């Protein structure tokens, strides 16, 4: 089943175009700072999402989403950290670029795409508004796990989501993701006030 789906995906490819693009990137781009050249290679998900303009066939999407689900690494103990630190992480758009120092802590770029705390007027709209998220969705263990997982690897829930796989890619640490979970779920967080 799996092999057939992959075969189908490749067969639909306009001949060698995707490979050409990778080849062009390898020829015309160069590594700089932490941005090494292996970054231009596509993994299966990136390949499929590019190929199907972010609308892959449902079965293929489901199959690859289940692969992404397997990447989850949940910490032992509580999934909820400190919303105050979470707010700072949500504000920062730094991390993972060639101009960011490799070991400096990254941000989550959350406000680039989402509304969170009502006090922050400068928020993006690529993702849904998360205003009052915890108030609307509760803060029990189920939702904690969902939010942690979503931040860790958003593609497990929606294969071609524009949201980065912030945990899986190594951008955010376990503690940082916990702090973001708190920002979204803690009743004391401004998001839920």
């Amino acid at each position, binding site marked *: 089943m799996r092999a057939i789906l992959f075969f189908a995906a490749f067969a639909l490819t306009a001949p060698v175009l995707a490979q*050409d693009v990778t080849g062009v990137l390898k020829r015309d781009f160069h590594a700089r700072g932490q*941005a090494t050249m292996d970054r*231009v290679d596509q993994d299966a998900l990136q390949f499929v999402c*590019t190929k199907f303009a972010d609308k892959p066939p449902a079965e293929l999407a489901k199959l690859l989403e289940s692969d992404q689900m397997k990447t989850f690494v949940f910490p032992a103990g509580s999934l909820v950290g400190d919303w105050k630190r979470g707010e700072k992480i949500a504000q920062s758009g730094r991390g993972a670029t060639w*101009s960011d120092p490799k070991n400096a802590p990254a941000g989550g770029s959350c406000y680039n795409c989402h509304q969170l705390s009502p006090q922050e007027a400068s928020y993006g709209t690529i993702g849904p508004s998360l205003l009052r998220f915890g108030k609307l969705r509760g803060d029990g263990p189920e939702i904690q796990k969902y939010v942690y997982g979503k931040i860790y690897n958003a593609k497990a829930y929606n294969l071609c989501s524009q949201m*980065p796989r912030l945990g899986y890619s190594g951008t955010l640490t376990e503690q940082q993701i916990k702090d973001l979970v708190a920002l979204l779920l803690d009743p004391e967080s401004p998001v839920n006030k």
Partner: protein
Amino acid sequence: MRLPLALLLALCLAAPGARAQDSKKEIEKYQRMIADSSPAELFELQGEDVWKKPQGPRKVSLERCDLGLGAGVLKGAYARLPRYFKDADRVMDLETRLLYCMTTLQGRDGAQASRTAFGTADKPSEMEMLSAYIAGQSRGVRLAPGATHPKEKAAYELGKALFFYRAGPWDFSCASCHGETGKRIRMQDLPMLSKPQYARPVVAAWPAYRVSTSEMRTMQWRMNDCYRQMRFPEPEFASDATVAVITYLTVNARGEPYRGPGTKR
């Protein structure tokens, strides 16, 4: 019981909505005011000096550089770029062509000129000044990049494929931010650059003075910094890849009267 709850909800939702509206209006006002009081023209003046200044081992100016309409013809030249150049046998955008002229006419080192193509507060860029000056000579001229030569068509197709190519640790493509209409990053409206009606006003305003760095920025810079934010490795200045994306965007903006150099946040 239902009615008051609905009312309450409506009230709660109305307030942030109204705030967002006000914010949008104020941001638009900000953008209007920075455009009204932009020092962009200064870069055109400086660019004219650079264009006419003898430089390089051959001690000649760029005044004999052929930007596509004949040696030294500036009027309307920018609006016809990128285009195929027979002498170089490749498609070139403005900066790629300038780099070509710097090396072939002035005998300068191309690698050196590429390294200083993006200005900083400490080192202003000739390339940025030249771009402002030359683009300014196309004001009012409709954008008509090359789209007939096989290499121009190939550049467009490659640019389009690059635009939608998702990769890197954050899985981004250009379309991640510029593939939908009505979206924004922070307060910044994001044009859907794959659609002509949205690409036109944006492309027709580059190069542009960026107030955040107080620099005149070019399309090559725009490509470079987008790829940086996309968490990709760095594109080579004036490479076929960057020229291809610029070709794709400019062909999408075809027909729009050029009105830059513009002013951006």
